[in-house]
């Protein structure tokens, strides 16, 4: 009998409530390392909440989340922040980049906050991979939406995360651009050896994933 593959993410009996209202329930979900997964659900189904829980930004009301063998509930707040910086990359829905900094400095800041030494060559390589090396010194306000999207992906990957989370990365894009962004995410995650989890309500990107978790909206 074959041994079960190592789970990068493991969720058991997860419940998240706001007051008396339950907004998310996941009985069990395992994501093997280097396997890309989709969290699919309508608005209000708790997709973003699930990503925030996986990232350790909020705590579950019940249940356990384990990432790379580490249970968040065993970590202090400071340890959780440090773990997040070193092991997770997050692409937010609105692609928010720090407006006061250039593209390159956004990536440098991400390394610095994760407690890593700045790697100028790696940053340049990453920006080159997403086609932004010529814009490295530009401020985010000078970039198009597509360029910001690529920059946000580069920033999420700069600390070589084991787990890359993306929240609605294609929600405001047409078919071609949605396809391109997914291609980019999958390619960069694969290049970096990261496990990718995408949360979306966008059915167009479902064919990119074999593994998926469907969330139902709570009343």
């Amino acid at each position, binding site marked *: 009998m074959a041994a079960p593959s190592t789970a990068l993410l493991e969720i058991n009996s997860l419940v998240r409530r706001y007051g008396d209202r339950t907004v998310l329930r996941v009985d069990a979900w395992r994501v093997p390392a280097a396997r890309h997964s989709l969290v699919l659900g309508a608005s209000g189904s708790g997709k973003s909440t699930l990503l925030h829980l996986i990232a350790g930004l*909020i705590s579950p009301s019940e249940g356990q989340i384990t990432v790379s063998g580490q249970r968040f509930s065993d970590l202090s707040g400071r340890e959780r*922040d440090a773990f997040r910086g070193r092991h997770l990359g997050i692409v937010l829905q609105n692609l*928010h980049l720090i407006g*006061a*900094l250039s593209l390159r400095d956004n990536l440098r800041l991400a390394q610095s906050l994760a407690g890593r030494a700045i790697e100028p060559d790696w940053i340049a390589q990453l920006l080159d991979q997403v086609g932004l090396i010529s814009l490295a010194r530009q401020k985010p306000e000078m970039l198009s939406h597509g360029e910001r999207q690529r920059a946000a992906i580069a920033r999420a990957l700069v600390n070589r995360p084991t787990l890359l989370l993306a929240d609605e990365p294609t929600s405001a894009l047409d078919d071609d651009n949605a396809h391109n962004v997914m291609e980019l995410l999958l390619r960069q995650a694969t290049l970096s050896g990261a496990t990718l989890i995408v949360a979306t309500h966008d059915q167009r990107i479902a064919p990119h994933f074999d593994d998926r978790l469907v969330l139902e909206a709570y009343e």
Partner: protein
Amino acid sequence: MSLLGLSLAYLRMRLLGTCLNLLLLALGVGMIVLLLLFSAKLEERLTRDASGLDLVIGAKGSPLQLILSSIYHLDIPTGNIPFSEVQRWRSHDLVETVIPLALGDSLGGFRIVGTEPAYAGHYGASLSEGRFWDAPFEAVLGSDVAERTNLGIGDRFFGNHGLAPGGPAHSDHPYEVVGLLIPSASVLDRLVLTDVDSVWAAHGIEVAKRHDESKIEPGGDADQQQEPYARAVAPQPVDDRQAVTALLLSYRTPLAAVQLPPLVNQTKGLQAAAPALEMARLLSMIGIGVDAIRGFSLLLMATAGLSLFIGLTNALQARRYDLAVMRTMGASPSILFVQLLLEGMLLAGGGVVLGLLLGHGAASLLAASFTSIETLGLSGFAWVAEEAYVVALALAVGLVAALIPAIQAYRTDIAAVLASGR
């Protein structure tokens, strides 16, 4: 990208607000620093000019006016007293020294003081050129006088009647410059010194000839003339109109401070004024103005602190999503706290540096623009210990102003901000 770099980037991003914050704080710090420099120099100068003088005897009137006119040469004299008082108090057991001053004329606004070389000796003045006076109408110029009038050894000038520039000239009695004093940062720098005889003679009062032993040997160089005043003797009265304006006394014993002033004040036409008391009163009067300016400066600093607080609070509101994103990248709440605090302290530190430059720059500018201020010894290169308190106060203002926004940053609810999408 360090937190310092990030803070500087944020400050650059809202450049106008940053500049206004810096300016407000710099103005407050600069004004207080200027005030400190000015007060310190004024007090130092007032103290130095009155140093070693225990009592001033003059005509009845305001004691403060007597001190201002006879020690600092800033006010008009209260009147004259008979020259016989010089001998009377000089022979008193409680008195160590008596220096007579005869005022009445001026040169281009600088006072001509009829006195004895002991007056220059009291301030430790030495000659840069020439010698002290040896005969009537020989004069020694203070350093500022020489510089402003461009007079040198051998030059002649006429005194003007009165103590303000432009009075009628005593054109029949020219003075000859026989000596120049080196700068002493004392009242001497602004005076023309001559003997009492010259002042009397200029006003048509008969003068006795000096005794031979009172003469200073002519022909010596400046080095040889450093202590000529020890041999000087006051002129002998031969005319009832002979009078002096004031007598500068030093006590032989501390007991004199109790006994001498009442004794002087009981004498008809005389009053005694203690420089220490009058100076304290003067400084207290000046202090009211100084306190008002200091209060205004503190208000400016408080306004700067408030402006800093508003600026950082607004920045925090505009930057809530940045902070949330930084948390997703691994920043702890403490990092966000430190970043906001650092931003406030950078502004405060910048304001302090600018304020110090402003205060010291203004001191240099004022000294260069106004001779009266320059003669105080005010300089942009001088520092006073109290400036350290100003620096500490300004940094504390920055710290307090940044503290609340920093605490708010620390408490940012990341999930709520991320969920809000902005």
